[in-house]
């Protein structure tokens, strides 16, 4: 039960033992403390967690977006199609950022140049990486904007970022991210700053683009609703570690880790027949300046045991693709893990 499943499929991206630290005024923050995950072609992996759990840092370190110093990748590897990308910018003659992996952010305004038109900004990487002429690149930019469902794309391409609304900017960012046909799109909280109606548009767009281009998506979010809507696989992060990982249905309907359960209980349930109480997770996440010796969730966990405060639990595979990093599921544990499973359909 504790053995890792054999890799049946070709993995697009494989991240192993990734750990990232930051030196700050108050001390060293261990933002990511050993993270493993992989992404398959054309699939969507959602990384869920609260603010400060290390989900953004995980992907930023892969993209070389961590300022060093103060940041530091202390261990781990990330292999894209078998090639190590950590600490590199070019793999196989292609730039990772932009060409191999596209990225969109929560706040598109900060990653766009306010003095360049949207069209020029999308065209620029095409000129640089693909050697397109300006005219060809700009025409391609308009096509990409159309793909991102921006109305009047030709006119919009000649406008500046400040003339765009938040939703339109995010579309422009997506157009830019997919310009060089990346195999992975990383979306870091792409809809957090947007209203629900605009969020729905952007999520639809991402799904459509994935169908068209076959790219994999790594979706970073804190919103379980967005996860349910988008993800094939889910990794739940807490205090710099992945505490539960599995197929979306496994994680939602057969939640194993107490944190995942807690998150679900803390959200309003929209079943009209069920007037359930919100069960908050008491307390707040641990201070990553001095992460606890044992499981980071111990202090808030209703099932906490003696061992939890001393030693970090190991990944326990409940099914082939579903693991929970919790002592409750350990074979030596007398507590039956089945009791903790969220009932299907509830």
């Amino acid at each position, binding site marked *: 039960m504790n053995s890792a499943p054999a890799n049946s499929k070709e993995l697009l991206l494989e991240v192993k033992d990734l750990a990232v630290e930051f030196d700050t005024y108050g001390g060293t923050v261990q933002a990511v403390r050993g993270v493993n995950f992989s992404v398959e072609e054309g699939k969507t992996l959602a990384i869920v967690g609260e603010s400060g759990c290390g989900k953004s840092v995980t992907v930023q370190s892969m993209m070389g977006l961590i300022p060093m110093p103060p940041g530091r990748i202390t261990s781990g590897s990330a292999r894209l199609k078998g090639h190590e990308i950590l600490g590199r910018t070019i793999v196989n003659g292609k730039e990772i950022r932009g060409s191999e992996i596209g990225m969109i952010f929560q706040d598109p305004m900060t990653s766009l140049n306010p003095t360049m038109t949207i069209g020029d900004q999308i065209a620029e990487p095409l000129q640089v990486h693909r050697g397109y002429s300006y005219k060809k690149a700009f025409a391609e930019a308009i096509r990409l904007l159309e793909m991102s469902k921006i109305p009047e794309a030709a006119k919009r391409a000649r406008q500046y970022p400040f003339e765009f609304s938040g939703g339109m900017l995010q579309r422009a960012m997506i157009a830019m991210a997919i310009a060089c046909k990346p195999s992975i799109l990383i979306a870091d909280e792409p809809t957090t700053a947007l209203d629900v109606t605009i969020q729905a548009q952007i999520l639809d767009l991402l799904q459509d683009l994935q169908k068209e281009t076959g790219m994999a998506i790594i979706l970073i979010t804190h919103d379980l609703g967005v996860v349910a809507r988008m993800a094939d696989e889910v990794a739940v992060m807490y205090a710099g570690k992945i505490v539960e990982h599995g197929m979306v249905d496994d994680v939602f309907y057969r939640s194993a880790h107490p944190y995942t359960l807690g998150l679900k209980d803390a959200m309003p349930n929209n079943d009209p027949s069920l007037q359930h109480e919100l069960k908050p997770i008491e*307390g707040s996440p641990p201070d990553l300046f001095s992460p606890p010796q044992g499981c980071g969730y111990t202090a808030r966990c209703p099932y906490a*045991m*003696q*061992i939890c405060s*001393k*030693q970090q639990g190991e990944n326990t595979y409940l099914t082939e693709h579903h693991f929970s990093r919790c*002592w409750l599921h350990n074979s030596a*544990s*007398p507590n039956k893990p089945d009791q903790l499973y969220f009932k299907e359909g509830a």
Partner: protein
Amino acid sequence: MTDLSLADFQPLEPGQEIHGISRPSQSYWQDAWARLKVNKRALVSLYLVIGLLLFTIAGPWVWTVDPAQQDLDQVSRPPGADRNALIVADYAPWQTEGLSFGEGLKVVGDPTTQAVKLKWDAIPGANGHRIYRNIFPIGPERSYGIPRAEFFDNRVVTFEDRLDLKALTYYYVLVPLGPRGELLDNYEVIEVDVHRVTTIVEAVDRGLIEESANLQIGDEINLDWHPFGTDYLGRDLLARLMAGARVSLFIGIGAPFLFVLFGVFYGSIAGFVGGRVDQVMMRFADFVVALPFLLFMILFKISFGIGPGESGVFPMLVALVVLMWPATSRLVRGQILQIREQGYIHASQLLGAPTRYLILRHMIPNTLGVVLVTITFAIPSAIFTEAFLSFIGMGVAPPTPSWGSMSNEGIKTMLTTPHELIFPALFISITVLAFNLLGDGLRDALDARMRNQE
């Protein structure tokens, strides 16, 4: 993972505080101080600034020399110069009878700062002689130095030099004169090491020794000690630097303090009242900014009129305050406008806080960080402005020392006695640098606090 007992799987006692805070409590200022302490440059600057303040305030109690006192024995002396003096008898005119000749140009007796006595033999073919004194050896270019005496009579073969003698090595040149007074080539030169001497009367007069001191002729005494040397009028440079620091720092700290105070007052009213009042007040501030600074300073100084015996410090202070407040007022207004929309202002309003309370309790304390940084940056700028104006002669009036006016005086003798320029210039530079670095550090420390809130 090897030996797990059943005990390990017992539920944990619910002893843990759920909303506990482990880190020690720190107020805004404590935290800023902790951050500042880590910043080495800022900390060194802070010590420098404290040292400067001590130098200015406590210095004159330790070094009690009057900055206006002239030490005529030691004019333009660099620091660390030899200051031994031999006690000699009072000056008596030179009796030249009974001198033996026939050895060419010679010094008679000890060459001292009291007098250098020379004798020579008439140079063959000369119709007379001219004596030059030089502080450099005579080279092929034959620059002889300053002419000291001229005799159109070969019978005069002695000369006593008493003019402004210093404890130096002099080169006396005896040049024979032709029939029409032209210089002939066969000169003679003698190197003379002059010793510093003083008489008992003089020494008592200048306060070097007690009247009752039992000193004999031939004893050695020390002249006054000037650790930083003296200026071109023989005034103690250290005492003048301290007195100058008072003027420079008084203007440099007083003016920013006053104009920042006024700026905070003006800006917070404009920001809080808002609307048309704000518009009018800010246009007036723009008007003041538009005044040409230097021209206005000069006009201001002229119209104030500095009478004899006045230092000109006060007009300068007023001028600086009048011209420099708008920047602060704008900054504070911006801050207040921003703070006015913060939740805690609304919350306090809803709790029924009167306007005065809102401003004093919520708004002003939250602008203090910015104001502090502004002051630390305004101080070096004011110090520099004062120095600059004094340097070009538009600042404080002599004899009041200020670092700027001292630099101005020092630049005249920059090549021979550079210390007169270097010391005041160094003080200006270090002070300006220290305040700027401190300001940088403070801004980082206070800003970081702001960032941490996000």
